[in-house]
């Protein structure tokens, strides 16, 4: 099969995949008797038509950046981490434990501590599957799926039996002390001129952006990143070059879990102000779509996270204003994963029709 030009592979493949997913979603909307163009208009208006809408879109995008980066780092070591959901939930537990441990005086002190808590527990939750993959050869995909379920059972147990304050009915922790409240975009001087109404997007957005940059530095500017990528391309070659598979597997998964766990500063600390059941709300899974769509590059992840933030907020608006159920966004998410991750050969084949076959250079 002829190879596509590099730019086409990087830009056109995700776009065509998105287009295909969009077409199928439009057909689904048509088949349930609604208008796709009307739906798109509501999504655009609701998600990016106002500063208020952007406040929600960016809030979702923040979470998706963290989980997308988590999947990306693991992907580069050719490890498919489906466990972002569980790692994010356990990371949420870490954030909650830190926030409840002390009467924090100010968020500037609470945030770094909570970040450490979330990242540590997220990484710890990824450590066991990583160890089993590296040492015992258990398939990481299966173990991380199992750990998602174990995480959700553990969280339910912790919330119902351990962390729930006496006298409270719903399974959740106590509210975090006021000193842990992160400033939302409408509370930050300068940005409050744009965001006049209260929005959930908060200071974690900037942490996520920094994380995108740091992951880029890690993967393409450090020795460790080189080892991760070399290992991901070819395990025998990496071994031959003296790279330890156990070490790379462990480190890549620990970073991945830590990034997923970090997500919880956005939703648990920034938005909910307490730990709830199912706090990650599927963001860990969306990370898979974000990483695939973003071609496993931090900048791509940033763009894809914005796209999925739009999709999420737009989907919620659809649920509010039309009779199209909110689950439409799950369908689009699944289709994007399908086309970018599994049917990518088909997409390339379609694209190949438009490019003249170029002779493969013999390396």
């Amino acid at each position, binding site marked *: 099969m002829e190879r596509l030009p590099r730019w086409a592979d990087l830009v056109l493949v995700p776009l065509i995949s998105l287009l295909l997913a969009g077409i199928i979603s439009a057909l*689904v909307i048509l088949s349930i008797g609604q208008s796709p163009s009307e739906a798109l208009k509501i999504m655009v208006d609701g998600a990016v038509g106002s500063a208020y809408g952007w406040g929600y879109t960016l809030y979702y995008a923040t979470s998706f950046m963290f989980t997308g980066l988590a999947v990306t780092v693991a992907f580069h070591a050719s490890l498919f981490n489906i466990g972002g959901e569980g790692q994010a939930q356990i990371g949420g537990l870490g954030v909650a434990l830190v926030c409840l441990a002390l009467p924090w005086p100010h968020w500037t002190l609470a945030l770094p501590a909570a970040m450490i808590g979330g990242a540590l527990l997220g990484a710890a939750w990824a450590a066991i599957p990583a160890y089993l993959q590296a040492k015992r050869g258990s*398939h990481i995909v299966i173990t991380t799926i199992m750990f998602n379920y174990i995480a959700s059972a553990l969280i339910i147990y912790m919330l119902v039996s351990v962390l729930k304050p006496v006298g409270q009915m719903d399974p959740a922790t106590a509210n975090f002390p006021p000193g842990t409240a992160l400033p939302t975009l409408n509370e930050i001087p300068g940005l409050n001129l744009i965001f006049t109404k209260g929005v959930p997007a908060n200071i974690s957005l900037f942490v996520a952006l920094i994380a995108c940059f740091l992951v880029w530095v890690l993967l393409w500017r450090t020795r460790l990143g080189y080892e991760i990528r070399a290992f991901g391309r070819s395990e025998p070659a990496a071994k031959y070059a003296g790279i330890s598979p156990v070490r790379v597997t462990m480190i890549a998964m620990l970073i991945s879990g830590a990034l997923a766990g970090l997500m919880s500063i956005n939703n648990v600390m920034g938005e909910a102000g307490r730990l709830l059941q199912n706090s990650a709300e599927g963001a860990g899974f969306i990370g898979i779509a974000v990483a695939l769509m973003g071609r496993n590059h931090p900048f791509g992840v940033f763009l894809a996270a914005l796209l999925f933030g739009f999709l999420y907020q737009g989907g919620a608006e659809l649920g509010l204003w039309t009779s199209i159920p909110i*689950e439409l966004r799950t369908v689009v998410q699944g289709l994007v994963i399908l086309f970018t991750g599994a049917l990518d050969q088909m997409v390339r084949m379609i694209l190949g029709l438009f490019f003249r076959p170029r002779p493969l250079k013999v390396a």
Partner: protein
Amino acid sequence: MDYATLLQILDSTLRLATPLLLACLAGLYSERSGVFDIGLEGKMLMAAMCTGAVAYMTGSVWIGALAGIAGSLVFAAVHGLASITFRGNQLISGVALNFVASGITVLVAQSMFQQGGRTPPLEGAARFNPITLPFAESLSAIPVIGPFYAEVLSGHTALVYVALLMVPLTWWALYRTRFGLRLRAVGENPASVDTAGVSVVRLRYAALAITGILCGLAGAYMAAGLQAGFGKEMTAGRGYIALAALIFAKWRPWYALMATLLFGFFQALALRPDVIQSTLNFAIPVPALDALPYILTVVVLAGFVGRAIPPRAGGEPYVKER
């Protein structure tokens, strides 16, 4: 715990193990052919929705079950297209199809019935009704065995017995037929099957079709046997428990029966925390019971209790020209 309570729990064990068993055997066919299928969950969900909707509209559970199988087969076909024809990533394809199923079932059910993404409750001939096995009444007088026969084995719906029959049938198909030999071979070493002049692609599609049918039955049982109608996310991770059971069973049919009965037993126990409390004199938290199948699977995967070795060619697309 007295004998009557034990019988009750065993009875619900069998009921709860049935969808797991069907899905587990479904996964067995596809994984033995060298195609990983994480999408069992999605196929079951799709089948449950189709069954719920069609059984309600036609009033016949069997037409509903056929619709469920059809819905599941569509997803199996897409999975085949992605993982066999286009040699894509089988794991990603399965994950993607689970999401599509999770969303589209609610979308369709909502637009058809406007009941918050459920299908209307089924009753009468639109559900699988219990079958009393012969002599259940007369034999129940025999101590110990009689009540076991009457309470636990008898009085289930048709698909429970179908699922149990599928175990020896799968064993026979896998180890005593030409198809089974080829199926096992294609999962271990597709090139050898190809050399023998048998189409790898066709065999794998056939395996996925069987997977689709069995997942269809599992979903139909969920919607019209275990419960009366489809509800959002009603499979609740059973596809993944079945996947866990498949590993626990080391990809073998009789072990699959035992693994799913064990996991079904955990689910039945989780419904009766009072029984555990009175038997063991301390309470095991229900979440711990819920997590037990997954923890056990991780332990097995880790190779501490026997070694679970998957089919060697699993997950790898077959490229003829290599």
